[in-house]
């Protein structure tokens, strides 16, 4: 039994690219690796599974899979270089967030072997000094989220730890005689974790991570009184007089400043590195309450928040590289890894079986060649990979906020969810909280994400196929392939990086079913595309909702601040609403002044996760200038069946709303039939808690289908909800929804502007 997991070094590539494949097995095992194209072909792994076909141009390769550890947890690493400190003082500000627990947390450690000195917080929440194997606690108990001044002074004969709570005015010290043979402290200063003593296989790991914030580590060449340390930490700036080093944790306003660099202001330039992506641009002890934006006062946001469960890069060795053929058509692909020791689940599931069913399929989207021609009529499908990443390794059903209540039914885990529960070291999603209770604000794709599989089922898809997010978007791919529409694949990352130029060759661009997360550059690209006469089919719900930022140095890492309001599984810390990665104001795009309604015609209204419903023609459905939309569609309600919740309006629903920016002249084509009481209004729409938040009691919770021209020849079609794409399913779909989608797509491919005839949308133009 070998459970097979892995990740690729990228999710998007052009033909000719070399793809790094990083794999592991739960036990050593042989596996075969090949490339498959998704959404076409005759192969399916299970009834209702996504169609696929092998890519014979990429030769299958046999590899050996080995178990691979993950060294999760963030920390700071500072090479002390030539310094050899037979005496000294390390001072820093410490804010434990979860001071009590099962294990000791290491705040700082320096030196090696029996000479090593460490500042720790014991499992009882007591700051303590560890000298070699000796632990000496202070008579002090750290409270959660309470700032402390910490000073560790040492000579070759003794070490002293002093902890001061400046708010309470309480200081406690503890002292230990050092080993007679103690050497000068050299090597590495590690903050928020301790290096492993043993390094199996030459691999270095860090353990005993600290959960909380650290600020302004200072190093002196001699012991210091606590008053001096306090003054330097709390009141001082820069390098204190007589100090050897001062590490500046404040975020840099320079756009290209390395996120993982903590510069030393001292003469030795002992610059440190942050590992595994701790959170920056958070309030430090010296935050005055005057500023809300770290860019206005970086020194007041000079703390770094470390978590034992941060993970930026699993760091697995590359098992093999796959070279994409130069002539490989653009599309949705997967690197398929099949173990040869599989054991399927039988009727007695307590008999151990392979939770991955012996294989994993790692998503890969292949773009068109950079300089290749784009045949006329080719559409672009932008896979919302930022949203895939936001949900990656979502553990809410395992330990978080209870989705069963939202779903109004039992949650059925996938076996890969169970596998995920066995591997906390594979990290968290943007929907989870850290061990210390803080929200998870960054997500990386450089790690195993076992649930991101083409046939995975999600509770968010309601009753039915379970297809939602990535597997839901593959229904769209299957439909495009069945319709014979020429298309090219793009991802959020591609459009973020290349801007509107990534879209300019395509008259029509399609979204997936849930493009929830968007960077400013991504949003700008879509809007520039529309302003330049391009067309967009927004085939989802709750789209372009959260504003995020991309790591300026590390591709595949995004940041989110769940500011202000919105449907959230955690709330951002007050006054920390600005991203560290780009300085942008986090939270809902609506709160940044760009409502989805203002450029898509609709925006998020509410959600329910059990049953979807159908649609009914609305105000403008019978206008002659939009007759093409319903051409061939029988009169009456439509979208009454679908693979996502059993209808084509539902799950997360969007509403047109002129007060929120919907174009009054846009065509309101259809609206959802009544949604049931499991649908609740978006909380950002509630000023006061009220008993009318369920859909049966408010007309505001509904899905609207709209089409609106954009001056200059552009146009946007919005389907109104996530469930629409379920209507495109071959066996569970809805003929009317398929026809409407095709009708609109065909019309939008026609270069003639939609508003060819004078209408009210022209009357309002200056």
């Amino acid at each position: 039994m070998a459970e097979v997991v892995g990740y690729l070094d990228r999710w998007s590539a052009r033909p000719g690219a070399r793809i790094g494949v990083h794999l592991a097995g739960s036990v050593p095992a042989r596996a075969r690796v090949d490339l498959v194209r998704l959404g076409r072909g005759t192969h399916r792994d299970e009834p209702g599974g996504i169609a696929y076909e092998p890519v014979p141009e990429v030769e299958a390769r046999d590899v050996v899979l080995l178990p691979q550890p993950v060294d999760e947890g963030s920390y700071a690493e500072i090479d002390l270089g030539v310094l050899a400190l037979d005496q000294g003082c390390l001072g820093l500000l410490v804010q434990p967030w979860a001071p009590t627990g099962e294990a000791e947390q290491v705040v700082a450690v320096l030196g090696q072997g029996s000479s090593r000195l460490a500042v720790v917080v014991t499992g009882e929440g007591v700051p303590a000094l560890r000298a070699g194997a000796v632990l000496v606690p202070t008579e002090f108990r750290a409270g959660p989220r309470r700032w402390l001044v910490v000073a560790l002074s040492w000579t070759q004969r003794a070490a002293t730890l002093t902890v001061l709570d400046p708010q309470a005015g309480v200081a406690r010290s503890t002292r230990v005689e050092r080993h007679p043979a103690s050497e000068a402290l050299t090597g590495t200063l590690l903050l928020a974790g301790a290096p492993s003593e043993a390094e199996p296989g030459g691999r270095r790991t860090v353990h005993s991570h600290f959960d909380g914030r650290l600020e302004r580590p200072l190093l002196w060449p001699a012991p210091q009184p606590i008053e001096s340390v306090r003054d330097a930490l709390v009141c001082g700036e820069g390098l204190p007089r007589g100090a050897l080093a001062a590490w500046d944790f404040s975020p840099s306003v320079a756009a290209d400043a390395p996120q993982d660099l903590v510069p030393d202001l001292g003469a030795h330039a002992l610059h440190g590195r942050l590992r595994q992506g701790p959170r920056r641009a958070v309030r430090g002890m010296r935050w005055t309450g005057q500023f809300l934006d770290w860019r206005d006062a970086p020194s007041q946001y000079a703390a770094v928040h470390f978590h034992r469960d941060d993970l930026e890069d699993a760091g697995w060795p590359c098992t093999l590289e796959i070279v994409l053929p130069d002539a490989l058509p653009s599309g949705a692909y997967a690197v398929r890894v099949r173990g040869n020791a599989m054991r399927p689940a039988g009727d007695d599931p307590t008999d151990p079986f392979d939770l991955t069913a012996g294989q994993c399929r790692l998503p890969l989207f292949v773009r068109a060649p950079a300089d290749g021609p784009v045949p006329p009529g080719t559409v672009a499908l932008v896979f919302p990979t930022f949203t895939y990443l936001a949900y990656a390794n979502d553990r809410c059903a395992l330990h978080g906020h209870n989705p069963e209540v939202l779903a109004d039914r039992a949650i059925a885990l996938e076996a890969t969810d169970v596998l995920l529960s066995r591997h906390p070291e594979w990290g968290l999603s943007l929907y989870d909280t850290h061990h210390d209770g803080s929200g998870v604000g960054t997500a990386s794709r450089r790690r195993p994400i076992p649930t991101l599989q083409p046939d995975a089922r999600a509770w968010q898809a309601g009753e039915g196929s379970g297809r939602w997010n990535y597997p839901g978007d593959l229904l769209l791919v299957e439909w495009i392939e069945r319709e014979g529409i020429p298309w090219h694949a793009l991802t959020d990352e591609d459009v973020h990086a290349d801007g509107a130029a990534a879209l300019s060759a395509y008259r029509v661009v399609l979204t997936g079913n849930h493009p929830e997360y968007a960077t400013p550059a991504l949003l700008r690209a879509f809007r520039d595309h529309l302003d330049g006469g391009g067309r967009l089919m927004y085939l989802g719900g709750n789209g372009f909702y959260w504003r995020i930022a991309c790591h300026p140095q590390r591709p595949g890492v995004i940041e989110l601040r769940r500011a202000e309001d919105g449907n959230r599984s955690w709330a951002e810390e007050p006054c920390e609403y600005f991203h560290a990665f780009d300085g942008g104001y986090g939270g809902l795009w609506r709160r940044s002044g760009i409502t989805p309604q203002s450029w898509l015609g609709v925006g998020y209204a509410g959600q329910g996760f059990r049953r979807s419903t159908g649609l009914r023609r609305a105000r403008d459905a019978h206008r002659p200038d939009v007759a093409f939309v319903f051409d061939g569609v029988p009169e009456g309600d439509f979208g009454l069946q679908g693979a996502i919740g059993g209808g084509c309006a539902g799950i997360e629903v969007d509403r047109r709303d002129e007060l929120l920016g919907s174009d009054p002249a846009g065509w309101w084509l259809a609206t959802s039939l009544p949604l049931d009481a499991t649908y609740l209004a978006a909380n950002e729409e509630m000023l006061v808690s009220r008993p009318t938040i369920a859909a049966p009691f408010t007309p505001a919770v509904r899905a609207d289908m709209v089409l609106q021209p954009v001056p200059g020849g552009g146009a946007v079609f919005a389907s109104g909800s996530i469930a629409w794409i379920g209507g495109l399913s071959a066996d569970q779909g809805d003929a009317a929804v398929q026809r409407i989608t095709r009708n609109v797509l065909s019309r939008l491919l026609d270069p003639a502007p939609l508003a060819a005839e004078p209408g009210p949308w022209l009357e309002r133009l200056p």
Partner: protein
Amino acid sequence: MNASTTEASTPGGDERARLAPLIRRFRQQPMGPYDVELQAFLLPLRNLPAAGKHALMRLPGREAWTLVRLGGRGRPVQIVGGCFTTPALAEWALFRARWQSLHGWDPQDLDDAPGLPGGAAGG
């Protein structure tokens, strides 16, 4: 009603009699829709904290589900067993498991009338 009230109650004979109609209604229609009274009965059960809570897992590649038990943060899900071949059977089996772990008696004992979902075939 909240989760703690559900956990605290250990129904005696009278309580069983009071709950019996609700449990029967759920068993007849485990996939809903639920009336207001039944919803109020079910929500606290569904809102229980994760650690130790029963849940379902789909067997890989199959239209069949088994019972599992959530471990909570950082702890693995345990596979309990059973093989249920429809969502309704799985939902009823899950309800039974949760109820038994909370109250110590099997709600199926209330009524094993033939023809109801979750009867002899319900595991």
